[in-house]
């Protein structure tokens, strides 16, 4: 499914951070977002996922086509790996074998009965990403998905992403590492919202 973002403006805490953001991600493709800390990558991704309203502009299709994975994995400490994936599969109305496939794709087979509180940071992240597979949604919106993943796990993730794109899905990923994908890269610095005052003026006022 193609994602089309047209002249989008987003705000964080009421302050506009990005404006005039326009891009297309065709079905089967991935888009990598780059930009310095604080430029608005997370804000843009949360807007795409429908977690906050846009100031202006249009996003098609809407958030009902988007599977979002942010900084937090949304895991419950006392639920096991299987229970977690089965829960999300039922919430998203996925087929009964979807959790098993997701467990295989992210090599979680040895951990299925383990409560998530006993997983390592990398294993938790793998479980968080495996959730994307059971949502069955065509557009993945990912915020730093490879944090705390080692090289082998990053490979699993890239493989899952390739499979998703090969099946007609698409993805938008904010990341700082090279995933080895043939993906377009969009630098968000060019869309920075113009501030009415410069940073220097703020610093001067604060006496710094």
């Amino acid at each position: 499914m193609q994602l089309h973002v047209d002249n989008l403006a987003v705000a964080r805490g009421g302050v506009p951070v990005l404006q005039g953001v326009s891009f297309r991600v065709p079905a089967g493709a991935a888009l990598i977002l780059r930009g310095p800390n604080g430029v608005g990558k997370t804000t843009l991704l949360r807007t795409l996922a429908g977690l906050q309203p846009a100031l202006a502009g249009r996003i098609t299709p809407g958030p009902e086509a988007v599977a979002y994975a942010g900084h937090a994995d949304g895991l419950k400490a006392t639920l096991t790996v299987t229970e977690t994936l089965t829960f999300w599969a039922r919430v998203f109305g996925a087929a009964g074998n979807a959790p098993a496939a997701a467990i295989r794709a992210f090599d979680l087979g040895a951990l299925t009965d383990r409560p998530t509180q006993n997983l390592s940071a990398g294993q938790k992240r793998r479980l968080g990403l495996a959730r994307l597979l059971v949502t069955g949604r065509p557009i993945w919106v990912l915020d730093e998905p490879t944090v705390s993943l080692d090289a082998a796990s990053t490979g699993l993730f890239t493989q899952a992403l390739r499979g998703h794109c090969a099946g007609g899905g698409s993805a938008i990923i904010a990341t700082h590492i090279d995933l080895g994908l043939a993906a377009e890269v969009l630098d968000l610095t060019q869309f920075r919202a113009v501030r009415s005052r410069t940073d220097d003026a703020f610093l001067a006022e604060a006496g710094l």
Partner: protein
Amino acid sequence: MTALLLRDLRLAFRAGGGFGLALAFFLIVVTLVPFGVGADTAVLGRIAAGVLWVAALLACLLTLDRLFQTDYEDGSLDLLATAPMPLEGVVAIKALAHWLTTGLPLTLAAPMLGVLLNLPGPAYGWLALSLALGTPALSVIGAFGAALTVGVRRGGLLLSLLVLPLYVPVLIFGAEAVRRGAEALDPTTPILLLAGITLASAALLPFASAAAIRVNLR
């Protein structure tokens, strides 16, 4: 929807889930009252209805701040908000799970504790009925307060201040129904008003709660 209810119940019953906290608090308060007030059965019988209702209300309040806070902190609330399930439904299901793990056990335990406070005989049925009708309102109103304060760290104090005034009508009509039952008067009016509060809050507040959560997730 069922999946979310089962998940919340499962979480409540597992280690650290908080099931039993409200019930234990309720037992402790009601057990301590005779020690504080003295063993005069006439006095105890007169205050029993009020004590049981106040204790149930405070026990309910004790568990409210966990309702959305844990889901907010671990990111589950973001994911639930993007799931193909209306946020109003998520709020209603979570309030239902809260009632099943606090209000319902309190309702079942209250008649037994009535004995401890020398609650007059005819009042037992009305005590169980008024709690069964009133505690769902406590969960739904509490969910609204929890939704308003979900973005606030250590928001328990703010939550209590917001919710307590909204709890007062429930307390008044609940305790009044039991008192009238104890004095062999007709408790129909407070029971009907209690049912009205519960139905109205269950019908309206999930929408307000979902709106509050949407604002807090921004």
